[in-house]
């Protein structure tokens, strides 16, 4: 399983409860498929650089997770069907940086995935 970063832009009008509901709808299948949700960031309401579906703002949600590759396709399909999702993007989370590995020589093989995540955040 690989480490992914998924960012979802919801409609700006959704209430907090509704966002949580949508979040559950993402995280539950991950857990079911044997994956793991590592981090959830709520960026809140942000101004969009350009209008999407005639909206000027969107509520951003950023999830870092470990999922089987097959689930990513299914997630993508669900986001497309979901009307309140303005935009979504899933990318592979960057691996531990070579420079960080240099700073801690010999720790390369022993580096835990959790460590890799922390270097990524910054």
């Amino acid at each position, binding site marked *: 399983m690989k480490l992914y970063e998924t960012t979802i832009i919801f409609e700006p009008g959704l209430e907090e409860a509704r966002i949580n509901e949508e979040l559950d709808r993402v995280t539950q299948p991950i857990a079911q498929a044997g994956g793991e949700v590592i981090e959830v960031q709520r960026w809140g309401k942000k101004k969009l650089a*350009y209008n999407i579906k005639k909206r000027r703002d969107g509520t951003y949600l950023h999830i870092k997770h470990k999922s089987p590759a097959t689930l990513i396709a299914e997630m993508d399909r669900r986001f497309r069907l979901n009307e309140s999702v303005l935009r979504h993007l899933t990318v592979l989370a960057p691996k531990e940086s070579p420079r960080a590995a240099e700073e801690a020589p010999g720790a390369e093989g022993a580096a835990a995935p959790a460590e890799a995540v922390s270097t990524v955040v910054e």
Partner: protein
Amino acid sequence: MARDGESRSYRRKFCKLCFDKVDRIDYKDDRRLSRFVTDRGKIVPRRISGTCARHQSQITEAVKRARILALLPFTSDQYR
């Protein structure tokens, strides 16, 4: 007519990201990325910004991802 290059004082360009020892450019960091984008939203070429090849390719990828997430514009229509 003197050539422009002769009269202009010349300063060597350097990669600002290497100078800052930036290891990886994040597509979520739209503040940093906006420095490598023109006011029309175009990616600034290496010959102008002086970024090294490694960082330029990181910028390119990051800007394109940021555009998808509407963190950066594909184009700015303020100038019409």
